C-alpha cells in the first residue's frame, strides 16, 4: 500500500458526494472558529503578557454588542448546518418507490441477504450499479447496524421491527460492510463486502445460484406447508374462515375495533406473529400465533408472497376491507 494516507473513503454511492461536500463545509467552519479562537488566545496572551509595567489587567467592561454578535452569528451558521444536514438526511431516509428491494436479516454475528429472485447470500451483498436499492432489514436477536462507509449510509437493524436503508451505487467494486452497533463477542467480524456489479453481471450472478426458488415461491410453499391455505384460501377469493390476502398489501384494512391500518410489511409481520393484535373487521380471532414457529427469513418469504398477490382489483375494495 504505497498510496498516501487517504482522508476520505471511496465515493461509491449517489449520497457520497453530497455528504462529503457537507463534511468539507463543516470542517471549514470548524477550522475558521478554531483559528479565530486560537489566534485570539495566542495574540492576546503575548501582546498583553505580564511584565513589570503591566502587573494588572485593565478593567474592561463587557460588551453587549459583542455578546449578541457571538450568539447571533453562531446561531445563524448552526441553523444553516441544521438545514443542510436535514436535507441530506430526509433524502437518505425516504427510499424511492421503484427501488429494487432486498431483504437483510442480521443475527449474531452474520448478515443474511435474500434477493427477490430467491438467491441468498451470507455476509455479502451483490447489487447492480446505478440502480436504487432498498434494503428492508430486521434482526433476529440484538441490535445490529448495517454500515457501508463507501456509500455513507448506515441504519440500525432492530429486533422486532423493520428498518429500511436505501442507496444507489455509482461505481462497481468491492466495499466494506460493517456492523457498527455493538452486538457481542464477534461484533468486529460481523461484516463482509458489498459487491457492486454491472447490471448484466448482476443478472448473471442472480441466475448463477443453485437454482433456488424465488422468495415468493418459497413463501407460497410455506403458505401451503403451514396450512395457511385452509383458512385464507388459495389467495384468490376470501377463504372459509379468514380474509383473503389478494390485494391486501398496501391497502387500508378495517379492524374489528373500528380502526383502519395500512397493511405494510410490519402489519403483515405482526399479523403472523401476533394474529390477535389486530383483528380484521368481520372475522373471529381464531388464527394461531406463529411466534417461535417460523424464522425471520421465512417471515420475509411469506411477506414477499403476500405482496406478490398484487394490487387490490381496480374499483373494488378487497373483501377484507370492504366487508362490514
Amino acid at each position, binding site marked *: 500500500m504505497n498510496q498516501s494516507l487517504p482522508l476520505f473513503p471511496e465515493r461509491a454511492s449517489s449520497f457520497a458526494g453530497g455528504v462529503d461536500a457537507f463534511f468539507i463545509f463543516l470542517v471549514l467552519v470548524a477550522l475558521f472558529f478554531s483559528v479565530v479562537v486560537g489566534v485570539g488566545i495566542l495574540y492576546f496572551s503575548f501582546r498583553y503578557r505580564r511584565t513589570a509595567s503591566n502587573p494588572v489587567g485593565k478593567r474592561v467592561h463587557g460588551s453587549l454588542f459583542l455578546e449578541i454578535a457571538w450568539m447571533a452569528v453562531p446561531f445563524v451558521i448552526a441553523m444553516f448546518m441544521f438545514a443542510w444536514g436535514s436535507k441530506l438526511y430526509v433524502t437518505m431516509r425516504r427510499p424511492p418507490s421503484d427501488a429494487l428491494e432486498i431483504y437483510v436479516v442480521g443475527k449474531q454475528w452474520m448478515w443474511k441477504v435474500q434477493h427477490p429472485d430467491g438467491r441468498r447470500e451470507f455476509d455479502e451483498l451483490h447489487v447492480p450499479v446505478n440502480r436504487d436499492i432498498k434494503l428492508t432489514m430486521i434482526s433476529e436477536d440484538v441490535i445490529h447496524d448495517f454500515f457501508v462507509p463507501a456509500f455513507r449510509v448506515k441504519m440500525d437493524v432492530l429486533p422486532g421491527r423493520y428498518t429500511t436503508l436505501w442507496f444507489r451505487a455509482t461505481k462497481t467494486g468491492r466495499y466494506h460492510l460493517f456492523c457498527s452497533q455493538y452486538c457481542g463477542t464477534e461484533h468486529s467480524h460481523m461484516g463482509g463486502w458489498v459487491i457492486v456489479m454491472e447490471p448484466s453481471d448482476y443478472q448473471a450472478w442472480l441466475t448463477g445460484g443453485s437454482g433456488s426458488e424465488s422468495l415468493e415461491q418459497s413463501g407460497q410453499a410455506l403458505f401451503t406447508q403451514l396450512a395457511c391455505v385452509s383458512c385464507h384460501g388459495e389467495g384468490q377469493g376470501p377463504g372459509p374462515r379468514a380474509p383473503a390476502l389478494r390485494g391486501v398489501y398496501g391497502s387500508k384494512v378495517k379492524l374489528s*375495533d373500528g380502526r383502519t391500518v395500512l397493511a405494510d410489511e410490519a402489519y403483515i409481520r405482526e399479523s403472523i406473529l*401476533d*394474529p*390477535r*393484535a389486530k383483528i380484521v373487521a368481520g372475522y373471529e*380471532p381464531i388464527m394461531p400465533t406463529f*411466534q417461535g414457529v417460523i424464522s425471520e427469513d421465512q417471515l420475509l418469504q411469506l411477506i414477499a408472497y403476500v405482496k406478490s398477490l398484487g394490487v387490490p382489483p381496480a374499483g373494488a375494495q378487497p373483501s377484507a376491507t370492504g366487508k362490514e
Partner: protein
Amino acid sequence: MERTGALLGQFRDLDQQRETVALGMWVFLLTEIMFFGGMFLTYTIYRMKFPHAFAEGSRELDVVKGGWNTAVLIASSFTMALAVRAAQMRKRKLLCILLASTMILGGVFLGVKYFEYAQKFEHHLVPGPNFHLNVPDAAQVQIFFSLYFAMTGMHALHMIIGEGMLLALLIYSWKGKYTGGYFAPIENGGLYWHFVDIVWIFLFPLLYLVDLHR
C-alpha cells in the same frame, strides 16, 4: 428558652438551618419525581402501543382492593398532616397517636398489597416463564404486569422505608424531641409520606382503571 433543637455547626442561626433543611427535602423529592418519571414514561409508551393488552391486564387486578387501599393511603396522609399540625402546636401525645395511626394505616396498605401480590403469584400473572393468561396478546400483557410490579413494587419499597422513618419519628416524639418548637424532621417526614401518597394517586387510575367499562 425552650429547647429548639441543636444548631448544627455549619449554620449561622436556626432560621438558616430550617430554611436549608426544608429546601434539601424538596430537592430530594424532585429527584423522586424523576425516578418515578422514568416508569411513567415507560408506561405511557406501552399503553399507547398496546391499549388492548393493558385493558386485559388491568382487568386481572382487584379494583375493589385497589380502591380501598387508595382510601386507606389518603387517610394515612390525612393523619400525617395532622401529626405535623400537632407538632406545630406542641402536643406530644396527640403527635404520637397520629404518627402511630399513620403507621397503622400504612401497614394496612402494605398488607392488602401483600395479598394482592400473592394472588398474582397464584394466578400465574407474574411475568417470566410461569406467566400464563389465556388472552389474545398475552405477551404484551406481560409488559403490563412487569410495569405493574415495578411501579407498585417501587411504591411499596418507598412505603416500607417510610414506615421505618415513622417508627424513628415516633420514638423521638415520645421522648418529646419534636414538641419543643423544633419539628423539622416531622415536617420532612410528612413531605415524604405525602409524596408517596401522590405517586399512588396516579398509580391507581393508571393500573386499576384501564377501560374498566368494558
